[in-house]
């Protein structure tokens, strides 16, 4: 009997260890659970809302499971005859109950899911009392394995880094020059695909200044791991000053230079005082095959990415 008691006490510690493990992870400050803008905040709220339902389900099932295993194991001391009913095979009432409850849970999860689905397709609304700002339009174009960010209003373009003003919605217009990729800045919100011949829209916004990690999250070949960028979120004045500086100091993006950059491979950060949008519209039917037609032979070569990784140019 004593040994059994001991074992039960150890079993009791299992949930405790889970809690310790979870709280330990909490200290890691996971990006998605630490939103830095209204879009990631909406998604965070939805995740947390769903999370509590899921915890509820897990607790109910685990409790029932543990009860059945302990009470109805064959060699439990003190089993009685009434603990065994081999022909018990249904109970309409309880079956209806456990069919209806999941339906209710699905309904309760569907409502905020649908409203958030719709909310994500619009610029985030300003908080009460703040003025409505027009979204800043940035064309985010991928090519194997780099990012082009074109600011048509400001007439500037950056490669592999991004500057955005805080407290203003950003309207990303996503497309790709070749393979399918996805723009993901987890601190600011979820991802969407960049596809050649298509244009998708993604609204994000930063509420806090800072430098955030952005990347292509959709596997697209050998250089995938290197297709990352930093997002510099800064106050409006600072952002405008940066635009000013780029416009006056950076070189223009010539068609030759852009063609050079489109070649499959990795490049460093670059800055230009004009955009590629005037030469090529990768989202159109005319231009969607441009890179593939131009560089068909280059796609046959391998990068041997480890060598590049060691130079830490893209860390």
């Amino acid at each position, binding site marked *: 009997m004593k040994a059994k008691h001991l074992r039960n006490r150890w079993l009791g510690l299992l949930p405790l260890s889970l809690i310790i493990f979870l709280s330990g992870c909490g200290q890691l400050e*996971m*990006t*998605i659970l630490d939103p830095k803008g209204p879009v990631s905040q*909406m998604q965070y709220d*939805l995740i947390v809302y769903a*999370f509590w339902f*899921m915890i509820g*389900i897990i607790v109910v*099932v685990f409790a*029932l499971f543990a009860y*059945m295993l302990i009470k*109805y194991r*064959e060699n439990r001391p003190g089993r009685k005859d009434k603990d*065994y009913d*081999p022909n*018990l*095979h*249904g*109970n309409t009432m*309880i*079956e209806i109950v*456990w*069919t209806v409850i*999941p339906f209710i*849970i*699905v309904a309760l999860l569907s409502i905020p*899911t*649908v409203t*958030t*689905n719709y909310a*994500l*397709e619009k610029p985030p609304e300003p908080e009460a009392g703040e003025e409505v700002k027009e979204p800043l339009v940035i064309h985010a174009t991928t090519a*194997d394995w780099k990012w082009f960010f074109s600011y048509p209003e400001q007439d500037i373009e950056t490669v592999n880094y991004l500057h955005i003003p805080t407290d203003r919605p950003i309207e990303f217009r*996503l497309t790709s020059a*070749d*393979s399918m990729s*996805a723009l*993901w800045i*987890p601190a600011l919100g*979820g*991802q*969407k*695909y960049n*596809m050649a*011949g298509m244009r998708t829209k993604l609204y994000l916004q930063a509420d806090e200044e800072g430098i955030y*990690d952005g990347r292509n*999250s959709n*596997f697209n*070949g050998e*250089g*995938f*791991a290197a297709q990352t960028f930093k997002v510099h979120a800064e106050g409006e004045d600072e952002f405008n000053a940066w635009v000013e500086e780029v416009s006056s100091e950076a070189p223009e993006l010539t068609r030759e230079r852009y063609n050079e950059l489109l070649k499959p491979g990795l490049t460093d950060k670059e800055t230009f005082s004009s955009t590629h949008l005037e030469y090529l519209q990768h989202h159109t039917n005319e231009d969607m095959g441009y*890179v*593939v*037609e131009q560089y068909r032979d280059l*796609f*046959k070569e*391998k990068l*041997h*990415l480890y060598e590049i990784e060691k130079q830490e140019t893209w860390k």
Partner: protein
Amino acid sequence: MHITDILVTGEPIIYGAMVSMVLVGIALLFLLTYFKKWGWLWREWLTTVDHKKIGVMYILSALLMLFRGGVDAMMMRVQLAFPDLGFLNSQHYNEIFTTHGTIMIIFMAMPFLIGLMNIIVPLQIGARDFAFPYLNALSFWSFFFGMALFNISFVIGGAPDAGWTSYTPLSGAAMSPGPGQNFYLMGLQLSGIGTLATGINLMVTILKMRAPGMKLFHMPIFTWSTLVTSFIIVFAFPILTVALALLTLDRIFGSQFFTLTGEGMPMMWANLFWMWGHPEVYIVILPAFGIFSEVIATFAKKRLFGYNVMVWSMIVIALLSFLVWVHHFFTMGAGAFVNSIFSISTMLIAVPTGVKIFNWLATLYKSKIEFTVPMMWSLAFIPSFILGGVTGVMLGMAAADYQFHNSYFLIAHFHYVLIAGTVFACFAGLTFWYPKMFGHKMNERIGKWAFWLFFFGFHVCFFPQYFLGLDGMPRRLFITNVAEWLPLNVISTVGAFGMGLGFMVFVYNVYYSFRYSERETTGDSWNGNGRTLEWATTTPVPYYNFATVPYVDEIDPYLRMKEEGKTTYEESELKPIHMPSYTAQPILFMALLGLASFGLVFEWMYVAIFGLIGGVIMMIVRSFDYDDGYYVPVDEIKRTEKKARGL
């Protein structure tokens, strides 16, 4: 073309693999010759149409593939836990995760389950073989040559590297030149023929060949799950066949269905792939549910709770499985309305699945749970699968999925459902029906070691990956290049090796049990707790399965048979049994199609045409084949049964 253009060169790991493959091959040839087993191999196995032997071959192949896919997984885990070692470069890693995914789904999970169905379903319904035994052999050999073709890619020609989803335009000829992607297309196409044929075969077998009196709602639940699965196969696999064919035309013959040039539509691939791919998920999970239901009822020594509801929930899941494919690419920008529809349909699947979970729990209520190894796998499934299920619902919420998609949260989710569901079921089912197949049980003590190692390894491996996903780590990343992600990756790798160890102990148990396990003397191997007809036959099962087929008019018919002292050998009712003849046609036919596929992979058209013409000739040969099988005389049945029953 020179030989060095075909062989993959320059990778020490691959040289190692080549050498070990050659050595194993030589060893096998030597053993077969030394023990004079060539004739035995040909007569008893390669030309067989016996559903039980074909099932065993399926399972052996699947275990081999579990090993190969597992080694791929270990290599990935080593790379991610020790990024500074320089163990794998990006290209090699990409090849490995592609083959890992493809092999585990197409060449491990499905054939493992189809192997169990092969052996058990005819026994459960009182049939003497499949409806089309020749076609069944054909199915196996199409799978086998498809598997072989896919697997040689890493030493000859280069492995595919565009992910198991093979998304266009990346997997098209422009961005993935060379034979690698062709191996994927032809390997899947060839084995897909077999899967589709098996679907039809099982469907007809179950609908037409049940024991007298057995209505659909008298069938054992594993047979039900097989029937539902075969319907999914028959409706889903043609979509894959068409998609693969279109992409093959693109890559080899220069058409432009999924290309960026010529106004192709690369996104169409994602749609076609997942219109097959999502039902495919249920093809590998419903039979698993069936296995758990059988095992739990047997070792709870109690009738399955809510049999009718269990059946209907499987049917509802099967229908819904065709209506959710868009949830694999919510982020493609289809808009809020489309995403909302597919969010809701996705979450609805949780309802019938939840009902099944509660039914299993209710089966345990007022039962007598005996903790045998198959029961432990089945019980462990319930809490583990719940963790995968609830995160699946979270992934189904489109707005939240924007953050989860392509991340390790997704990876953790589908490993939780596929391992806790399908893999646990494969182990449970194999251990459960092992005595039926081989005439002895697997050792329980070693089996428990394998279970606990695998079970803990599994949770340690995949639970941390949820948190990696929440921290923004994307899938298919070849290097852990963010310092915060490293600790959890190391933990995950430790777990993966736990699973690997568990698998090795399992395989050792096969050897140990072969040497030392007690041989079965009765057909009802688990202490007389068998409930369905497969336990009513003797062990080992005679090649004609049932000397006399019992009349069945209830669920769990063997329980009553035991009470009434009935067996599947009623001497007064014996009649000669009609059995199909063994034939070498299926293996030859599929070898020729395998050759054609190999030719297409390298775009050697003469080889492809030669193989295809050979295939057509084999069809003509079959059309003029008047072998209707043979009759087993009553005397021989008597002799066999008396020996097996010790009368």
